[in-house]
């Protein structure tokens, strides 16, 4: 890591806001009385928590796309797998309180005439195991996928299409009832997490704070990576892959490490998302979800990490507001947003902010070339 100064001013600002929210939102929800203008409603807490999970997913996408040049259209797969791992833990916590009252088998398994718990559900009643799986399952899939793809030097649009196919294949697989993950309906009706009622205000607030901490932690981790020499090599791979190779770097190893880490971050985001929205189903693997994540990054500013998180929150807040107004038109608005950003804000919202800040800092410099005609 590059000494102590690997987090810049923008980064500290970002961390301060996220950690500030981790404290203030729960306080404003639990301590400030309802009716006060400072009160954050029970509806808003999980909604904001969801945005933070999306922001962490966006940071993960930005790490591989912004710094390594791998445009992933399949990050929803890792997000979804992390979510399912958490969902399985939550299902096992229901215990005998399900509709069928079976102490071992979740409702959908009783319904589908399962006689015993499938082997891949073993251990998920124990939180530390589920937590490890949240990291391990997306990480393993990413590692295997990346091992083959990067070694065969699949790049550019071909790689993007394969990532898209990967998440689509997972979606189809999880839709099947006999996969053992609840099929179409997914996993839902959760009751407890770590012994606390999942619908209690305190639990919701704690989940929000955990999401904020995960986002800040994920950001610091990514920032440390991209400012190290490893990160400099990543950018070199992004901009001139074969040059880097002819310099003696094993490009595939650099990509694989970055890709696998990114998938694990996405898995954590998914795991925090599920208890806050209360359901995980195969729809999370939909190709459109992965593409949306890419749009958040593009809107916020690719290759900035902070911008990716900002983009995720902005676009999703826009989505919440817009779908309340005109639900059918949201996808058109999203498409238009993407086209406009690509055309007019190639460096995203954060890039625009940088440009404005630079103009304000030294107006004299920018005025000079304008005053002087072409040399």
């Amino acid at each position, binding site marked *: 890591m590059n000494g102590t100064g690997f987090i810049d001013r923008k980064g500290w600002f970002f961390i301060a806001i996220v950690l500030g929210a981790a404290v203030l939102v729960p306080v404003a929800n639990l301590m400030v009385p309802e009716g006060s203008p400072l009160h954050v409603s029970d509806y808003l807490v999980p909604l904001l928590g969801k945005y933070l999970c999306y922001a962490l997913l966006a940071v993960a996408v930005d790490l591989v796309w912004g710094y390594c040049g791998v445009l992933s259209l399949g990050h929803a797969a890792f997000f979804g797998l992390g979510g399912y791992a958490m969902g399985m833990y939550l299902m096992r916590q229901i215990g005998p309180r399900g509709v069928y009252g079976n102490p071992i088998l979740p409702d959908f398994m009783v319904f589908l005439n399962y006689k015993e718990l499938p082997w891949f559900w073993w251990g998920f009643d124990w939180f530390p195991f589920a937590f490890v799986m949240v990291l391990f399952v997306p990480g393993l899939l990413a590692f295997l996928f990346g091992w083959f793809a990067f070694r065969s030097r699949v790049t550019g649009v071909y790689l993007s299409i394969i990532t898209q196919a990967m998440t689509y294949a997972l979606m189809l697989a999880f839709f099947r009832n006999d996969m053992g993950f609840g099929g179409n309906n997914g996993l839902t009706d959760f009751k407890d997490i770590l012994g606390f009622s999942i619908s209690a205000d305190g639990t919701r607030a704690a989940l929000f704070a955990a999401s904020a901490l995960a986002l800040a932690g994920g950001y610091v981790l990514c920032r440390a990576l991209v400012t190290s020499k490893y990160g*400099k090599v990543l950018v070199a791979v992004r901009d001139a892959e074969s040059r880097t190779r002819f310099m*003696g770097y094993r490009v595939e190893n650099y990509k694989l490490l970055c890709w696998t880490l990114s998938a694990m971050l996405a898995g954590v985001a998914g795991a925090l998302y599920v208890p806050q929205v209360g359901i995980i189903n195969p729809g999370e693997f939909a190709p459109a979800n992965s593409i949306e994540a890419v749009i958040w990054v593009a809107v916020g500013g690719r290759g900035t990490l902070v911008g990716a998180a900002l983009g995720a929150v902005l676009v999703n807040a826009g989505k919440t507001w817009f779908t309340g107004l005109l639900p059918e038109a949201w996808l058109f608005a999203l498409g238009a947003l993407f086209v406009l950003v690509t055309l007019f804000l190639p460096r995203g919202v954060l890039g625009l902010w940088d440009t404005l800040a630079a103009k304000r800092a030294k107006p004299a410099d920018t005025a000079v070339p304008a005053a002087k005609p072409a040399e």
Partner: protein
Amino acid sequence: MEPVTQSLLYLDNVSVVFDGFRALNALSLTIDEAEMRAIIGPNGAGKTTMMDVITGKTRPTKGEAMFAGIHDLTKLDEAAIAQLGIGRKFQTPTVFDMHTVEDNLLLALKEDRRAFSNIYWRRTAREKERIEILLERIRMTDQRFRKAAELSHGQKQWLEIGMLLAQEPRLLLVDEPAAGMTDQETADTAELLRDIAKTQSVVVVEHDMQFVRDLDVKVTVLHEGSVLAEGSLDQVSANERVIEVYLGR
């Protein structure tokens, strides 16, 4: 393992066939330690394919390619070959645009290339010193904090040569280093390459005859994938077959 040959680079009977097209046709060539060689030849003579074979980008259909007498280049990949000590400069300058001049050199320095260890990397005094020396040598000390994207074409060419030197290769393959340079820059480049060739082997592919004359080294003429003539520039320019090929009978 016993060295097969005393030469640093040894190509024997190398052929490369793409879909029936013979890019290289039984090419044989040897380069000695600390030798500079100029390679000339018309378009499609196989100059770039030859470099691709040496650096592991292309596998020869048949033939032998040995480095330092013991390393079989036909079995290694680009990264392994680069780590053995073969550096390559491309025809169009390829530097890392988003990195500063200094970082470009830093990435090229002959150091640990593994991904994990580079996460924990910290700049050492030795690295710093070597970067200073390199900046001095390519005359870019005052440009060190500029992004490579902002450099002029000639500066990029020099930066790329600097990056090649940072790798401390035993053999440098340099593709058209003088392309797009001013006369002064061309002369300076020739001087720099001659200086490098005192300690390292250099293979220069070039179209600019004046530049080849400035280098004043043994010349190999390639034509249709094999060696047409070899000798001093005056000798090969007097060769009838070379004249025929260049002037089109």
